[in-house]
């Protein structure tokens, strides 16, 4: 930094969630009149960092100073009071209220104890104009606006709070190019007005265009800070990776020549604005990965196969025959034989208060029963098989599944589906929040199932896993498949570059504008 006293400073900030370390002695300095870009992979700690700044989570240790004075924030409101306003990735607008109501929501103007609607309207119009979104009517309900407009309202709302530090977390991810240009104009003006801006984005070209200073995060630490334009895209990607392989993966079999008919095939799947003409094939014995940044349509793609989405266009083929899958119940039927290991096992995978036994047999109850009566002996045999196969560690089959560790819970979810002997297995980030040992077992299992002939589609936010487990990886961006990596092409560099939608070696953006 150039000697000036930073407006805001974080020192030695650490935060753990259970056994997971989100931030480890992180440091950050923010100065007035500048835009600070924050870079890092999924799970590098960026989101936690700004949540700490914005008063959403309290750090376990470390200190923050504003204007040289130590501060702590007990709530988002307290951070706002201090002039730190954050525009979150998940929108913080109230859908049933009007745009104007939302813009003034933290501190509505009042007259005689009641909200002054005229003043509210005026503030809202000013804020919308400042955000370059004067076309949005202040009386419109937020729920009636498309996502990109809502994001503009979100920015207007932040500006109405007269922030000293404005944090934008992936604020442009839902915006059209015109809106992005407008927002950039606004942000540059705010910088010249003396605001400190913190800009978090996965889009390298945006950081390059906006930022004065950049900080790269990795594994919960800030690993490098540099003046914008002093490093190439490739150097930055290098900084973001820099991680050793910490998992052991089973060997991949040599790539067989593509089977005649893929078990699962999609042609031009589209759904609302989340999926855009996705085509893919998964053959028997193949593990196909879905890569890319979080939230680029991977989850929706799996749900589309599993019959959860309505109004899906495009076609799905099983064994080369077109099928219409109307519900998860239809997806698991014999002709299709599909299983989905969901992302959130606590809500979508398990009934936590029910027993391990009950949870295990849910998906296979129709097979274990005659005339609606469950064959307890057959159930017991199958359950024993599964507990043995997956080495589920439990004090008994009749304890609530919620009492198991995260890894064993995930094994129960997987076992539940394996009891149906599925031919197609969809996995939605199955190793999130589970211990390394169990992860390793899951990798082995996945390969074993594939060797036995299953077709596996595997979404993971962990690049190591994609590299270690997959025969092919499809990288999604903005709901579309942007790149297919096969065999040895699956490297961390290739995954990150295509996830960020930048291509290979040279940087398309002219850097060094602020020498």
């Amino acid at each position, binding site marked *: 930094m150039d000697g000036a006293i930073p407006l805001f400073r974080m020192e030695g900030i650490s935060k753990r969630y259970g056994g997971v370390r989100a931030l480890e002695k992180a440091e950050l300095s923010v100065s007035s009149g500048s835009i600070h870009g924050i870079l890092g992979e999924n799970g590098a700690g960026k989101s936690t960092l700004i949540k700490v700044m914005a008063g*959403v989570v309290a750090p376990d240790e470390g200190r923050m100073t504003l204007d040289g004075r130590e501060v702590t924030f007990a709530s988002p409101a307290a951070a706002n009071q201090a002039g730190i306003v954050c525009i979150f990735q998940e*929108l*913080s607008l*109230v*859908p*049933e*209220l009007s745009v104007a109501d939302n813009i003034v929501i933290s501190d*509505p103007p009042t007259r005689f104890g009641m909200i002054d609607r005229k003043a509210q309207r005026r503030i809202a119009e000013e804020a919308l104009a400042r955000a370059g979104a004067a076309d949005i009517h202040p009386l*419109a309900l937020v729920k009636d606006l498309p996502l990109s407009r809502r994001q503009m309202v979100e920015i207007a709302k932040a500006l109405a709070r007269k922030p000293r530090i404005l944090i934008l977390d992936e604020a442009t991810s839902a915006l059209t190019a015109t809106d992005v240009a407008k927002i950039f104009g606004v942000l540059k003006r705010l910088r010249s007005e003396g605001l400190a801006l913190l800009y978090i984005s996965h889009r390298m070209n945006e950081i390059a265009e906006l930022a004065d200073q950049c900080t790269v995060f990795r594994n919960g630490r800030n690993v490098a800070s540099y003046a914008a334009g002093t490093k190439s895209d490739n150097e930055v990607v290098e900084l973001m990776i820099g991680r050793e392989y910490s998992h052991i993966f089973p060997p991949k079999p040599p790539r067989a020549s593509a089977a005649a008919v893929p078990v699962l095939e999609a042609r031009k799947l589209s759904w609302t604005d989340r999926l855009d003409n996705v085509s893919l094939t998964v053959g028997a014995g193949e593990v196909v990965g879905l890569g890319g940044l979080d939230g680029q349509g991977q989850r929706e793609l799996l749900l589309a196969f599993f019959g959860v989405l*309505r109004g899906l266009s495009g076609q799905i083929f099983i064994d080369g025959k077109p099928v219409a899958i109307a519900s998860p119940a239809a997806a698991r039927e014999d002709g299709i034989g599909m299983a989905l290991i969901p992302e959130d096992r606590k809500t979508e995978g398990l009934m936590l208060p029910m027993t391990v036994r009950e949870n295990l047999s849910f998906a296979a109850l129709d097979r274990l029963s005659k005339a609606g009566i469950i064959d307890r002996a057959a159930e017991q045999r199958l359950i024993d098989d599964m507990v043995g196969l997956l080495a589920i560690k439990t004090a008994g089959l009749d304890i609530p599944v919620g009492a198991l560790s995260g890894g064993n819970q995930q094994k129960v979810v997987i076992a539940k589906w394996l009891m149906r002997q599925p031919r197609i297995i969809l996995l939605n980030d199955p190793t999130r929040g589970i211990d390394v040992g169990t992860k390793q077992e899951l990798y082995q299992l996945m390969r074993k199932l594939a060797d036995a002939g299953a077709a596996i589609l595997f979404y993971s936010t962990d690049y190591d896993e994609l590299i270690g487990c997959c025969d092919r990886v499809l990288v999604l961006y903005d709901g579309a498949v942007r790149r297919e990596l096969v065999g040895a092409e699956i490297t961390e560099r290739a995954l990150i570059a295509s996830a960020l939608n930048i291509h290979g070696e040279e940087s398309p953006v002219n850097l060094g504008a602020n020498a």
Partner: protein
Amino acid sequence: MKDWRYWLAEQRGTLLALGIFIVMFVIYTSNHPAGFTANVVQTAANKGVLLAFVAMAQTLVVITAGIDLSVGMIFTLTNCLASWLVIGTGIETAFGVLAVLGTGLLCGAINGAIVIYGRLQPIVATIATGAVYFGIALLLRPFPGGSVNEGLADALTGRLFGVVPASLVVLLAVVLIVWVPFSRSVLGRAAYAAGSSETAAYMSGVPIRRGKFAAYALAGLLAAVGGLFLTFFTYTGDAAYASGNAYTLFSIAAVVLGGVSLFGGKGSAIGAIFGALAFRTIGDLLFVFDFDPLWQPLFQGVILLIAVSLGAFALFRVRNRLEWFL
């Protein structure tokens, strides 16, 4: 779009309820043997405002995405209490009224405290507190009885200038004194915001807890106004279990007919008032068409079912089936 169109969209539920009410009331009076006379209107108004007060109470809680199954019991409890206290000289009567309203406010505040600070689901918490409120009512009036200041009762249930039902004037006054300030205050805004998206409201630093607490407490107050009026009409207090439950149930029907979303965040007490008046009128249609009164509960049940089904239409638009379960 012009401003008035946004206004219209916002008021659609209320206007629809008003429309239903007018149509039903026209059918009712045109088939009534006495026709559209001041007497018929007065009787209808007096029956209608009871439910209107309870429905307003329900609206406040439903806006926060909660539900208050104790409103009918607060209504019954305050009726019983009023039959003891609202009597005697002018001063005594005035203190009696204040005590009854204060009791309603306290009941609502207890509900709010349990739901907000005890983190219980509104449905469970208010079933339990409702049972308690009824139990107290029964101790106050093991048998129907008591009395009320008849001068006041007759004035508030009579007619002003020979035509305007006084009960409607009181209803209007309560709207102006309680609902309008609440809906335009920061706390009212907070109640709406909490009902629509509690996380977004929290992230925006909205005083969610105070807003919800105010909604529950004022709901108790409004139910007490209803209980007071019941005493004025009947001159007695009666701990009637079935009647208390019916008012709770009908208040939900009225709220839904009035365009208040059971998912929270949307609707107005004015709509709920018209919903209540419309619901009452529909129920009374049976009488003017000479049906056996035995059919009335079934008929009202069907209307209730239709009214709550209206809320399900939004699910047809959901494109990700997982959102059905949110």
